[in-house]
């Protein structure tokens, strides 16, 4: 029998040390400094898309400076990973980007596979591509719909959420979970596709572009929505590159950079797809790039579903996977293009069964850093729209 060694049994439960003296709990009310007003938005505010606090300095309704205060969802996942085996870390990565859990699963697994020198069977790679492109659609639905909701068009949110619901249903029949999948595992994926899944997936892919075009017409074609988003939160390409922005935030500014094409990984080179790129770098372009990406994802999924037929069902795990991974000492980094941008995982192994250090290069973190830059000079109403267009997911920002 194995005795737990370090568990305190005869001690009182540990008490959280610094919680009641944290300076964050002081909420600034209206404080006038000269002609400006400091307004506190969040950490619990309908438009922060999570738990973000933004301290806004307002001149009338014009934003002089917006300072995001993050860390409200910081769970120390990087520290927790140092205390778990390589396989036990996978569920932790689910909790990073909870709108797109598949990505963090995959990025982490790729880093582990690189570190341990595992070759993944091609069928598993195809399945990974399919689920991650589905995840891209689901995640973008959570960016386009709220862009409508932020501007007050709540119906757009329901329309996109309907599409996300269809994807989540597919995931549920695939792995039983709707939000945190724990599906992509080192060496492959956890389950093969169930019977009839491919047909259901094809049905979804067939109807999705039409639904997106409908949203394009009634949301992006709406005169008020255009007036609210065009020319708002402009980010120029040089700033986007310098600030490390990636994904739709960078592509909306005309930075034509997508890891699926520019640093191809997995089986992406076999597919024919295009990368939508915006030109103005405003909220409208950033959001619309996501819409077209969702349509492109449908193309990738149908090609991958076609390609899947070549491989024998069941070959979804690498051969000879040990129960307990103990890679040789060294470090490895791998990144994929998530719905928010380039998501990288840096792993250091000391030869033991646990990672010595895990670092997640989170695209949402880098993109959110742009908020003070892109929101300055716009109004308070624009601020929430701009924040939404950066599409931060705070599980990933705070880790």
């Amino acid at each position, binding site marked *: 029998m194995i005795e737990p060694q370090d568990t305190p049994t005869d001690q009182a439960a540990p008490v959280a040390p610094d919680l009641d003296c944290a300076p964050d709990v002081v909420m600034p009310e*209206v404080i006038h400094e000269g002609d400006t007003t400091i307004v506190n938005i969040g950490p619990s505010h309908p438009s922060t898309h999570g738990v973000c606090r933004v301290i806004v300095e307002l001149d009338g309704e014009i934003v002089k400076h917006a300072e995001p205060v993050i860390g409200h969802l910081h769970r120390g996942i990087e520290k927790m990973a140092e205390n778990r085996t390589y396989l036990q870390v996978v569920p932790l990565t689910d909790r990073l980007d909870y709108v797109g859990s598949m990505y963090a699963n995959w990025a982490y697994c790729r880093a582990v596979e690189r570190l341990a020198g595992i070759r993944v069977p091609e069928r598993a790679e195809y399945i990974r591509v399919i689920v991650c492109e589905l995840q891209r659609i689901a995640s973008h639905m959570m960016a386009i719909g709220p862009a409508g909701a932020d501007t007050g068009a709540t119906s757009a949110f329901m329309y996109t959420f309907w599409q996300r619901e269809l994807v989540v249903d597919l995931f549920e029949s695939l792995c039983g979970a709707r939000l945190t999948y724990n599906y992509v595992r080192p060496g492959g994926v956890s389950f093969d596709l169930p019977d009839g899944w491919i047909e259901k997936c094809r049905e979804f892919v067939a109807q999705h572009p039409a639904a997106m075009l409908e949203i394009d017409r009634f949301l992006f074609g709406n005169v008020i929505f255009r007036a609210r988003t065009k020319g708002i939160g402009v980010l120029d390409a040089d700033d986007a590159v310098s600030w490390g922005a990636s994904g739709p935030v960078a592509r909306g500014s005309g930075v034509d950079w997508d890891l699926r094409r520019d640093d191809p990984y997995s089986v992406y080179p076999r597919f024919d797809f295009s990368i939508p790129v915006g030109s103005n770098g405003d909220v409208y372009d950033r959001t619309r790039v996501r819409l077209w990406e969702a349509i492109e994802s449908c193309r990738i999924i149908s090609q991958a579903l076609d390609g899947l037929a070549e491989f024998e069902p069941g070959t979804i795990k690498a051969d000879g996977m040990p129960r307990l991974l103990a890679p040789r000492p060294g470090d490895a980094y791998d990144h994929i293009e998530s719905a928010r941008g380039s998501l990288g995982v840096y792993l250091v192994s000391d030869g033991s069964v646990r990672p010595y250090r895990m670092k997640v290069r989170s695209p949402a973190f880098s993109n959110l850093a742009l908020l003070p830059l892109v929101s300055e000079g716009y109004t308070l109403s624009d601020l929430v729209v701009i924040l939404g267009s950066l599409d931060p997911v705070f599980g990933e920002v705070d880790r």
Partner: protein
Amino acid sequence: MSANDLALAAAVTVMVAGAAGTVLTSDVPRLVISLGTFLLGVAAAFLVMGSPLLAVSQVFVYVGGVLVLVLFALMMVRRSGNEKPKVATRHDIGGAVIALGVFVLIASVMAPVAADPTPVVTAPNDIGAALLGPSLVAFELVGVLLLAALLAVLVIVKGGEDS
């Protein structure tokens, strides 16, 4: 004492109470409520005196417009979150003298009219005819004055933005 007199007395009481509240309180929301009470009292007095159009215009322009703008302006200059906003002035006596002067001016103008307090019911049509007939020049002059005031405000606001 007729019912009309009673109603007028009630309206005047409301007016006086509102006016006293406006002068005596320095807490902004209460001050605004007092001023609103006073203005509604004036409207009631107009109504009793047989001029419903004036009464409704009083509510429309003064309570719904001017008072809201006053409160709006006071909210804009609200200083800090924790201290209660107060309105204080160092010109109590000067203000009282000016108010008294205005009162004497109005009273002397109104004295001949007020000699006969029987209410005369004025239909909206009569007011319209009077404004566009004999009083047209005065009416238009007031309009020009308001326009000038509006332009002055614009100039002041623009000047503030430039500096």
